[in-house]
């Protein structure tokens, strides 16, 4: 049976390549028609993320740094896609995302969160992610301002519970995990996210390729 499979896979890979839609239109199915993210799919806003960060995350998915935890169904979705893409396709996808104009997200107010407490907590985030949540390429810290609040909550929780930042060779992830673990509970996560949410949307950092 294995032999049959092998032959089949060889024959079909050429056909598969053809059947992929051009220009990575695929991304927009989950991430929204302007790559602005989609709460129903739990897919983040990509338009605020610079090329280097997108590339880094493709690598993270392919290296099993993201999406390996058993219950991380959303991470696994993206991981499965990343695993089918070669380097050239990843660059194509990034270039395609770059062509999408950043979309202003609707303001969502979390009434149970304490923004002031969030601001205090954000002090420790600032060193890497910037005072305005604009990110820092040198430190490999992504922009946060303009990201969906539900996504930030989800990722802080993922770092905290070890779905992210739990692998020896993922040094940036490990650093972030330490900070996430210093947030004592869900309330703290909600507070710091509420503060980030209150930051005026910065234009994404460098939008250069490579």
């Amino acid at each position, binding site marked *: 049976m294995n032999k049959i499979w092998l032959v089949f896979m060889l024959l079909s890979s050429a056909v*598969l390549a053809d059947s992929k*839609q051009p220009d990575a239109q695929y991304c*927009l199915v989950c991430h929204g028609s302007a790559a602005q993210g989609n709460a129903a799919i739990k897919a983040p806003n990509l338009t605020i993320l610079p090329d280097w960060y997108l590339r880094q995350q493709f690598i993270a998915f392919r290296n099993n740094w993201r999406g390996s935890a058993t219950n991380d169904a959303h991470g696994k979705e993206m991981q499965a896609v990343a695993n089918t893409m070669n380097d050239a396709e990843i660059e194509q996808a990034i270039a395609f995302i770059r062509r999408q104009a950043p979309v202003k997200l609707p303001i969502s107010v979390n009434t149970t969160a304490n923004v002031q407490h969030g601001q205090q907590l954000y002090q420790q985030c600032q060193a890497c992610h910037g005072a305005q949540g604009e990110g820092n390429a040198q430190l490999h810290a992504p922009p946060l301002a303009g990201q969906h609040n539900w996504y930030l909550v989800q990722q802080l929780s993922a770092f905290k519970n070890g779905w992210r930042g739990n692998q020896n060779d993922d040094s940036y992830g490990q650093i972030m995990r330490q900070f996430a673990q210093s947030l004592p509970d869900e309330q703290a996560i909600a507070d710091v996210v509420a503060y980030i949410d209150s930051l005026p949307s910065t234009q994404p950092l460098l939008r250069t390729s490579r």
Partner: protein
Amino acid sequence: MSNYFKAPLTRRQCLSLLAKAGSSSAVLGAAGIFGLTNTPVNASPVTLKPLQGKNRKVLILGAGISGLTAAYELERAGYHCTILEASHRIGGRVLTLRRGDFIDELGSPQICPFDDAPNLYFNAGAARIPAHHTGILHYCRTLGVELQLFSNHNKNCYTQDDAAFNGQPVRIREYEADMRGFIGELLAKSATSGAVLDQPFDEQDLDKFIQFAQAYGDLDSSLTYRGTDRAGYAAGGVTTAGILKQPRPLPELLRSDFCAGAMHFAEIADQAPALMTPSGGMDSIVKAFLRQLTTPVQLHCQVSNIQLQPQGVAITYLKQGESYTEQADYCLNCIPAQLVSGIENNLPADYVTIMRQLGRGKLTKIGLQAKQRFWEQEDIYSGISWTKQDITQIWYPHHDAFKAKGILLGAYSWEPQISDRFAAMTHQQRLATAIAQGTKVHANYAQHIENGVSVCWQRMNHMLGCGAVWPEELQKTGFQLLQAPAGNHYLMGDQLSMHPGWQEGAVRSAWHALADIERREALRSTGAQA
């Protein structure tokens, strides 16, 4: 005798035993797992008044059953339709796979490897139609779709549960015969012991009731279950006298979860015999619609913006990386709500908020090509075997008996966690799992299986779910809002029916929207504000 109990039971004992053995609440619980229990009421097909020269344009988003239904009815009445479909194919969740078909699962793309033969197809989405789904059957009838009988329940299939019978598969025929025998005896004995129901119940009723219990369980004249030929004979039965099988002990039967779940699957209104399905695959319905349509469905058109306008709707879509915009009087949208919520729009905010809260249903189906129809050697033609393993079910083809090969359904689970587990595997791992687990039902399974397909609906491109999941509270507050038009835009599809997961829901949602357009057109022609 009562190997099951020594003294006549009290009603309370009887009821508590019944509760264990699959009472109404257990059955209802199971029904909840399996799908809906309510039955849609007949509706008369929509017939739109011809436009008679008026010029009306309608944009239909998505070429699923609801979109095709709408397009067919609108064209017949003289509306000009444009159908935009994001995928490379028409049909949406009606997906019949044959050799060479591309399976567009995100992260697990496949090409269907079945041999090229008319009987080798797999309904990876919709597969069966109950007789009371009069909307979809109306189109089967009027558009000439040939139907065959389809069976969920076949007594010769197996039930397998590691917790019972040493994990060995047992014929449903035997399991059900013994279970009914036990229940019949229990009922008869508790009735004769003077237990009374709360309802008025006289001597005559009691007599009838005992007769029922006797017939139900196939009890002997002393109201005892001693085995039955319903279970099939252990030996003989044709030219020599039949020898009954020894009943299995009740505790052993109860160890299997079959009695509290799958045994009652075919009692569910939408799953009960007799069911039907189109000959040659469910997509015969899609093809029948396409034979009628004059405008071709436009493929690879991914809608990216929905703008309500004072007099109509403007739709932007991406095709081969280019953006195009079209305007129309009306827009009928059958794109899954979880995807609409990611499409730029100026729909009312409360409308979009509801869409975001709809859950994504998770379902996995695996189809396997067998080089011999080995199930026929085991007296199985159609029906479902059940197992407690992740694959949950094995379906045998209801069609083309005695052909050389056949397509089995090798896994179909409604449990989201199970579907998550399949989704996390590579296609090859899914097939290996399906074969390994199927081996507990059919010992030589692996040597019969040649190849297969796996479809995780929550991962399918342009779907990302097997259907909308309405949280109960949200349905109470949000359903009507989403069902009503927003400007000249109508959201439809089975997601906007109380019957999601069935083509009937898709058809009826289209009729619902069309009836409203008809109403507005009537108002417009009298000059009133629609």
